[in-house]
């Protein structure tokens, strides 16, 4: 009965998508050089945004992490209010949230057993933060809107004024006007206010926002937290004997030659704990940094067609990396709560 009505429906969204693709192709290949994508400058350390609190510089990755934090806190408040409201069946967004938490809880319970209730909070918090940071990072505007800065080496681009809102001038950089940056010693000694007041000639964009996990400080902070909590839970579950894993004096005294070997293995365990921090930190950093680099470089080479699929890929990888971090910290922490003396009696 309703089919004729459905037939009349004009596929607006389809034409909108096609129009956006056509616009993108025009901007990338035929349009003025102003619209062309510019290949990015690869910077490893996070760049300061110019903001500072009590002399502490706020970098762009900190700003992005704060946004992820605020979103998480809003989500938590929403979930709390939902739980308080007494409704049993969650709808919409909270349904998805509940599904995620249920999945996480099942993973933790499968590996940790009776310690699951105590362990759950730490890996789950890490998961939610990393997940949110990885998703927030993919919003357009990240890594592309920022201050323009004079480059000291390499090729920058000339700035072009777009509009001015009151005292605020908006610029973009023009691919058609590459400018070779000349490294002069005078520029270094000139005061910072002067360089920001007078316009740069060979410019690069220092973004206001950059993905949190592209900063080693973020990933290593999480890694150190996870490994320290591993030790804390080990001591909580086993008491001081937990450290016998590292210093096997009992083995050394009455174990003979194999006791000596086991004593050496104990020291390897200490090194292993530090290797955990390293691999935790670099795994997340490497994946996300490489993903961001891939997106911006491929986006500069072929602006149309390929980047959407890479975005999908990045969404997938953001979830997988958050899950891997979660799973590894769960396994390490629950491994620390289990006494390994019981294995010897088998």
């Amino acid at each position, binding site marked *: 009965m309703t089919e004729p009505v459905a037939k009349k429906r004009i596929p607006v969204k389809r034409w909108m998508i096609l129009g956006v693709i056509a616009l993108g192709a025009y901007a990338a290949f035929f349009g003025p050089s102003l619209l062309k994508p510019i290949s990015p400058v690869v910077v490893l350390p996070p760049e300061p945004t110019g903001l500072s609190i009590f002399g502490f510089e706020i970098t762009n990755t900190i700003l992005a992490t704060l946004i992820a934090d605020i979103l998480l806190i809003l989500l938590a408040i929403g979930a709390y209010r939902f739980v308080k409201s007494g409704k049993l069946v969650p709808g919409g967004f909270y349904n998805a949230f509940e599904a995620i938490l249920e999945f996480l809880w099942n993973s933790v319970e*499968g590996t940790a057993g009776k310690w699951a209730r105590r362990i759950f909070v730490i890996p789950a918090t890490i998961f939610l933060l990393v997940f949110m940071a990885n998703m927030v990072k993919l919003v357009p505007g990240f890594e592309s809107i920022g201050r323009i800065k004079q480059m000291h080496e390499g090729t920058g681009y000339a700035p072009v004024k777009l509009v001015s809102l009151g005292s605020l001038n908006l610029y973009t950089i023009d691919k058609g006007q590459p400018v070779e940056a000349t490294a002069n010693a005078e520029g270094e000694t000139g005061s910072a206010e002067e360089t920001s007041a007078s316009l740069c000639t060979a410019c690069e964009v220092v973004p206001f926002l950059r993905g949190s996990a592209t900063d080693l400080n973020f990933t290593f902070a999480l890694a150190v937290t996870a490994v320290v909590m591993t030790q804390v839970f080990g001591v909580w579950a086993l008491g001081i004997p937990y450290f016998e894993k590292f210093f096997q004096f009992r083995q050394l005294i009455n174990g003979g030659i194999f006791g000596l070997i086991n004593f050496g293995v104990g020291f390897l365990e200490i090194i292993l704990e530090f290797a955990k921090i*390293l691999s935790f930190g*670099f795994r997340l950093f490497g994946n996300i940094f490489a993903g961001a680099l891939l997106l911006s470089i491929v986006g500069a080479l072929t602006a149309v067609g390929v980047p959407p699929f890479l975005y999908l890929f990045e969404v997938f990888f953001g979830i*997988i990396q958050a899950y*891997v971090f979660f*799973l590894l910290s769960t396994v390490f922490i629950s491994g620390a709560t289990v006494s390994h003396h019981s294995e010897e009696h088998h």
Partner: protein
Amino acid sequence: MNDPVAFVAGLKLLGAGLAMLGAIGAGVGVGLAAAGGVQAMGRNPDAAPIIQTNMILGMAFAEAVAIYALAVALIIIFAA
């Protein structure tokens, strides 16, 4: 060879590229883990969740080697 600075910069990039050869082993390892996991899930679909968890765990450990290579490459380019 006339420009020693550019020569050293070029060698650095070459070294970073060579350091990433370490990713070969990790790639093979991750592939083997995935192959084993998929075969196991095909034989015993009921055990899929446990197999999946352990598969991802093994992949993460295999991947760690590639990550060390990446760390070395980044250090060569940016820090050394």
